[in-house]
């Protein structure tokens, strides 16, 4: 990993920064953002991170980028040998799983929009459960009549599902190209009791 550099003291300092970066990332279970890391190892942190990433790429532990941060994670291909029982989502309901996907792919999305896509009212215990898992959070209010609250995914969502950015969501480009991520007005307002006006307003936005 350590490149031969002619200037010995400079090379040593660089190795020192690389070791520190490695230790910082290793010590933390959660991703660390580049700004925080730069504060500890200096402005060339981007180059050092790439070097570390390359070094760890073939190993059993990888350096991965997720959201705005970097973290060490066990290699994906070792999953079968490391698989633990699903403790996080022992029994996520279909409603919760679908709702999370809709928030992920349609964000920022209002509850009325989620309901119009699913065709049923959102049961209590769905959004709060997803929020408790740290996967979604309230976003900005939509600047339409009623100013409905929107929901968006968190960085922890990306981390949990091993995504670097939202662009890496499975099939997201295909779905968008097929127009399936449009919040086009629907003719049949199922499940959205009372929120019809707010829904109509959302769709125009």
């Amino acid at each position, binding site marked *: 990993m350590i490149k031969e550099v002619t200037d010995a003291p400079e090379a040593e300092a660089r190795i020192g920064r690389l070791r520190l970066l490695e230790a910082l990332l290793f*010590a*933390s279970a959660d991703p660390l953002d580049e700004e925080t890391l730069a504060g500890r190892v200096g402005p060339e942190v981007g180059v050092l991170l790439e070097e570390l990433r390359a070094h760890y790429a073939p190993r059993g532990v990888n350096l991965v980028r997720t959201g705005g941060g970097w973290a060490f994670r066990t290699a994906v291909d070792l999953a079968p040998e490391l698989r633990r029982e699903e403790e996080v989502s022992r029994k996520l309901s279909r409603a919760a799983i*679908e709702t999370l996907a809709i928030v992920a792919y349609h964000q920022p999305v209002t509850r009325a929009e989620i309901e119009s896509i699913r065709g*049923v009212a959102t049961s209590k215990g769905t959004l709060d459960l997803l929020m408790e898992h740290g996967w979604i959070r309230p976003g900005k209010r939509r600047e339409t009549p009623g100013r409905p609250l929107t929901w968006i995914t968190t960085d922890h969502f990306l981390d949990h599902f091993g995504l670097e950015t939202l662009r890496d969501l*499975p099939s997201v480009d295909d779905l968008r190209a097929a127009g*399936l991520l449009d919040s086009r007005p629907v*003719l049949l307002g199922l499940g959205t009791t*009372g929120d019809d006006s707010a829904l109509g307003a959302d769709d125009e936005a």
Partner: protein
Amino acid sequence: MVDWVAEREADSAASAEASPSEQLLLVLDGFEGPLDMLLALGRDQKVDLTRISILELADQYLAFVAEARKVRLELAADYLVMAAWLAYLKSRLLLPEPEGEEPSGEDMAAALAFQLQRLEAMKGAAAQLFARPRLGIAVHSRGAPEDLDLRRKSVYEVTLFDLLRAYGQQRARKDAGVLHIAPVRLYSMEEAVRRLSSLLGHMPDWATLASFLPGGEGGGLLTRSALAAHFAATLELAKSGRVELRQEGAFAPLYVRGRRQGGRDGDISEETHSHD
């Protein structure tokens, strides 16, 4: 019996002995609402969702609802609204298009097909998402983190969820003892049948269905569900021979009157949606 019902039953050994209503309940149990059920019906057409026959789908769904009503299974209002809407869509697709501002039957069918495709896409996306190597299950973080606390400016760990939950629980405690149950703002078909039955006694001659509708309070979905429920109720009552229905043409007002003693008038076109 609708064949997909039978197909689903085969999945469950427990359903082998079940009565028809129990079987329907089992079927209903598996769905997240009427759109989800339509999607399942659509998949059974075994064609690409983009080439799905909405007409066939409507027939299958209406057959299901008819079946449910035959065994006196109470369907959630959402299912009945969907049934009324599909019956309307079907008439729009089969009859010549009227002049007017309303979206055409083709447009309505296309919108429904889009809704189904979008829901299918989201189900697929959810499955792909949850098939990914997830943190804590397939991929693992450092098991023994050394808490360096680099970023945290505050020593207290409290998330937005903690804050909102605390406020919600505090509010709930304050309201404790008062159980708020949001009223279902949908008109049920049972209500409509009762209402029509009692009203018909007072109506000697033909009257439009619209004239039987309850007053406009509530508006929006409530009014639409009242129309749907009353429409379904007239069909039910016509089927049991208690009312007669008349309509001059497609989309003309629907007239209703109580069944008379003597034979039927020549111009009555009875509308029934029975599935034998």
